[in-house]
């Protein structure tokens, strides 16, 4: 069994399918055409770029090439994780980067060194795609978690205030929104785990099967990956929500609501 090689023409034909989305957008007046076009261009450019980068990295196969790439991936995920939500606060980006970095590297280390036991430790063929998958999902959890936390605190500001006025500690006042936020961040991964193999065949598994790997091995890899993703996104979400909590509640049990600003206003300043 060998892999059917795709030419750039084949890719171009597939890219035409984005026209379907464009037609929907126009028909329903969703006003998404520009965004769609931009997203499609980004997909093509980013993937082509990473293809070349990976080809080069795999060829090089040195830690001082692999490690910076992993750091760059993590930072990009961290920045993207801070971009969601109508409200933001000073330090959101740092919180997003910190929670994504800590959780995904910790869990990736467990996956690569304890489960898969790659050698050398930076083996790019494993380290990069696995970290990438973990990052992608952790980013979702982290950004949803922070977004929900800021939303809940805005919507329930009166309740937070009431709790503090009654004598609640800052954690007692914040815990209901924090719980909602962690839940919101974890649900996409849980949903994914619930339907994996039935509704969706994950990309990595599909890829391994396409590449000629036995489905049983591919499935084992997928199970490992699912759990790595679940662990990292849970850890990342909790970290992100706790960091947000620490920014918005002072040690003297005050809710610093004025730190929560609308994103548009924040970018104007």
């Amino acid at each position: 069994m060998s892999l059917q090689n795709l030419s750039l023409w084949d890719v171009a034909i597939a890219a035409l399918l984005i026209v379907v989305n464009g037609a929907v957008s126009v028909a329903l007046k969703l006003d998404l055409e520009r965004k769609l076009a931009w997203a499609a261009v980004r997909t093509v450019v980013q993937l082509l770029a990473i293809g070349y980068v990976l080809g080069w990295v795999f060829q090089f196969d040195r830690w001082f090439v692999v490690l910076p790439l992993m750091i760059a991936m993590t930072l990009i995920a961290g920045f993207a994780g801070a971009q969601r939500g109508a409200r933001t606060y000073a330090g959101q980006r740092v919180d997003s980067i910190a929670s994504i970095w800590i959780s995904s590297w910790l869990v990736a280390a467990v996956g690569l060194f304890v489960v898969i036991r790659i050698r050398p430790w930076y083996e790019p063929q494993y380290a990069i795609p696995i970290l990438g998958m973990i990052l992608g999902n952790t980013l979702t959890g982290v950004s949803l978690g922070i977004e929900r936390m800021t939303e809940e605190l805005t919507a329930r500001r009166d309740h937070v205030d009431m709790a503090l006025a009654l004598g609640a500690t800052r954690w007692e006042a914040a815990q209901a929104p924090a719980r909602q936020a962690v839940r919101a961040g974890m649900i996409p991964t849980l949903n994914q785990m619930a339907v994996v193999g039935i509704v969706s065949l994950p990309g990595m598994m599909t890829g391994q099967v396409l590449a000629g790997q036995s489905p049983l091995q591919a499935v084992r890899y997928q199970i490992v990956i699912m759990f790595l993703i679940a662990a990292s996104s849970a850890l990342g979400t909790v970290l992100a929500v706790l960091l947000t909590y620490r920014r918005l509640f002072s040690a003297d049990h005050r809710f610093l609501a004025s730190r929560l600003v609308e994103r548009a206003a924040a970018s104007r300043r």
Partner: protein
Amino acid sequence: MPGSPCIRHGDVHRTYDRNSIMTDTALIDAVDISRRDPLSGQMLLRQTRFTLNAGDRVAITGPSGSGKSVFLRALALLDPLDSGHIDWHGKPVERATIPRYRRNIAYIRQRPAILEGTVEDNLRYPFSLKAYGDVQFDRPRAASLAAQAGRGSDFLDKRASDLSGGEAQIAALIRVLQLAPEVLLLDEPTASLDPESSHAIEGLVDAWFADDRQPRASVWVSHDPAQAKRMSERHLTMRGGILDEAAAPRHVNEDPAQ
């Protein structure tokens, strides 16, 4: 008839004199506190010195946006201060004792925050907090407070979502009064209520004040001069972040021992 006529300031004073509580230090001493808007830098509360003694019933009036709420929230230590500090019974309030301090000074806002569930769930909520580990919910006591406010025994079982604005404020007030605070900070508690509910709120506060087992004092922010007169003996005005003691006939920070 507004308020309950049975408690008058003089009676309270006599009570404290008899128990010689009045030789005690002030309940709240706000020393040169000020607050700026953290975003615009605008001065919301100019350096203010304010002493609340046991037995004080203070009213603050003034145009909206003049800093009345800012001042009240500052007294409750709910917002960060830009200068000054607050003493409680003569001692500065430490970081670790802020929840405890807030337990003693109840802050009531114009729009009450009511949790989902029944009125009783709302009344039980404070007892779930660490600061109230030593006390337990007392339903008969809560019911008697509700009765004082002219509410039947079914009031505690009402759904929070079915409460009128007035009932919600009454529930919020009972939620703090059952905890027997020493100080009440009321931020226009009746501003958007019907006369009957306002009357009930004033009655509850009067009854709380009359209960003289411990020194008590209140600060009532109002934009209704008649209410301010009814509910206070000491009248302050707030203008542009400056708190002014009006030329009231008695006790402008007078020495309570006299």
